[in-house]
């Protein structure tokens, strides 16, 4: 696709005797929310790891914003504009929320090198002011001073999102942002992602089908390492192959 922000071609990966990913073609168009769904063990997280750079494919390529990033490491891809959140909450529990996000701001190339050995970070007020604005975006403005470990699960997920946003990504990879959250927190997270989608392209991996069908512009379905279908929510819902894979499931 010409205007694809993320373009994955023929991505394959074997683990021992298991074909985790089989010649996967996949693309995300700038501006869309693209959901990736599939039964447990389909290879969704493995796929995300290959997109984010945590794992390298046996064959195939990953292009991002017109650049071949297949050989780039994770931090290089982040610097190129691809941020991810984790399935399992992944924040710095002993730091306050503001400090967590400030670390993300500090990691960006445009905020300067972090090979600075003398000036205390605490004196860099710009970092923390910006961190607070990201916290406000995810609804954590009043939790800036709270130690991250003391936040509720939903708040930690939101904090994680703020950290990903603070890297100023073009593409946000969200790996099960709703995982482990209660219905109320889920609803808030859906609202949050809806708001974010106005500014940033999102690749969403999620089990919560209600959320997926509400948020996604397009949906791709991964089953046993193969991308069996990509289309609008309605197309996917009526696809016979998808129905077979999800037999008895929520569709």
């Amino acid at each position: 696709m010409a205007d694809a922000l993320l373009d994955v071609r023929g991505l394959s990966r074997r683990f021992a005797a298991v074909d985790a990913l089989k010649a996967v073609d996949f693309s995300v168009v700038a501006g869309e929310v693209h959901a990736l769904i599939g039964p447990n063990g389909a290879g969704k997280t493995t796929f995300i790891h290959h997109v984010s750079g945590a794992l390298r494919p046996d064959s195939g390529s990953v292009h991002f914003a017109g650049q071949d990033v297949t050989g780039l490491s994770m931090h290089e891809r982040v610097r190129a504009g691809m941020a991810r959140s984790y399935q399992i909450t992944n924040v710095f529990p002993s730091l306050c929320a503001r400090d967590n996000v400030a670390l993300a701001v500090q990691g960006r190339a445009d905020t300067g090198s972090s090979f600075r050995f003398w000036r205390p970070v605490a004196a860099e007020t710009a970092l923390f002011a910006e961190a607070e604005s990201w916290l406000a975006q995810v609804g954590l403005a009043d939790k800036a001073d709270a130690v991250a470990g003391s936040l509720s699960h939903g708040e930690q997920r939101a904090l994680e999102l703020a950290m990903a946003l603070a890297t100023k990504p073009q593409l946000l990879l969200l790996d099960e942002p709703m995982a482990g959250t209660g219905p109320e927190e889920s609803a808030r997270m859906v609202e949050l992602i809806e708001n974010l989608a106005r500014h940033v392209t999102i690749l969403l991996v999620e089990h919560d089908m209600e959320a997926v069908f509400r948020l996604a512009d397009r949906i791709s379905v991964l089953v046993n390492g193969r991308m069996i279908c990509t289309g609008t929510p309605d197309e996917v819902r009526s696809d016979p192959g998808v129905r077979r894979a999800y037999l008895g499931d929520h569709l």
Partner: protein
Amino acid sequence: MAFYRPARWQRPLALGLFAALVALPFVLEAFDQSFYIGFATRLLIFALAASSLNLVLGYGGMVSLGHAAFFGIGAYVAAICQQAGINEALFAFPAAMAVAGLFALAVGAVSLRTRGVYFIMITLAFAQMVYYLFISARAWGGDDGLPLAGRMTLAGFSLAGDRPLFFASLTALTVAMLLFGRLAQARFGRTLQAIRENETRMEALGYPVFRYRLVAFALGGAVAGLAGALLANLTGLASPNLLQWMQSGTLLVMVIIGGVGSLWGGVVGAAVLLGLEEALAGLTEHWHIVLGLLLLGVVLFAPRGVAALFGRRDG
């Protein structure tokens, strides 16, 4: 482990300690105990070496069992400089730091690609390699080590006698502690500690994790090299024993007793260990038993080290 934040009492205590140390040689001389100036110098030097390991281990989370290599290389560089006719510490000490630091850079570039027990083993292997290199190098004294003909000069002033080397060591330790204290709160130290806490997350925030670890590892090596050069001046010998894995173990024990990742851990650990040795070695040759019990006690009851017992507990 928590991120470093200076305790409120730190500045006054550090200034008080510094003042006491400045006065120490004069007090000891007045009481005719100048023997202890040498002991205090040794303590300062080991505090420096242990603190440099604490940068690597405590802030960086890298369990290196090869730190003695950089310490010993520093000692040898000083001795070799003198052998080559360069007796000026203003050249020899920076040279010791540079050689040890560059070697640490090379060791780190290889070993930091591994994790956990592999990292421990590969740093140990590198250190043993250096050890065997030096004991087989006849030109540098082999097994016997390379003796110094006398103490070097610093900016033309001789380091001979108790006081000059004591003050040189005190200066080195003070500057290093100042740097480590600042560094821990600066961008670099925050980054390093965050990497220790959660490497993957930092990678996912766009940090080139490997590079930060490597710089910390090399900086730790360079400072250990300086400590080695000072020790060679104190003892008058660059001994291969300084390079041995036992020495790496001793530095590790100092850091663990003092407090892994607390700014004063290396200093406190060196003081406790050398103090115990000094106090007990005269009484019984089995003083290592006491040391063993102490280590056990620290690990069981004060896992963050003796220094942390006085510190704040939040992060």
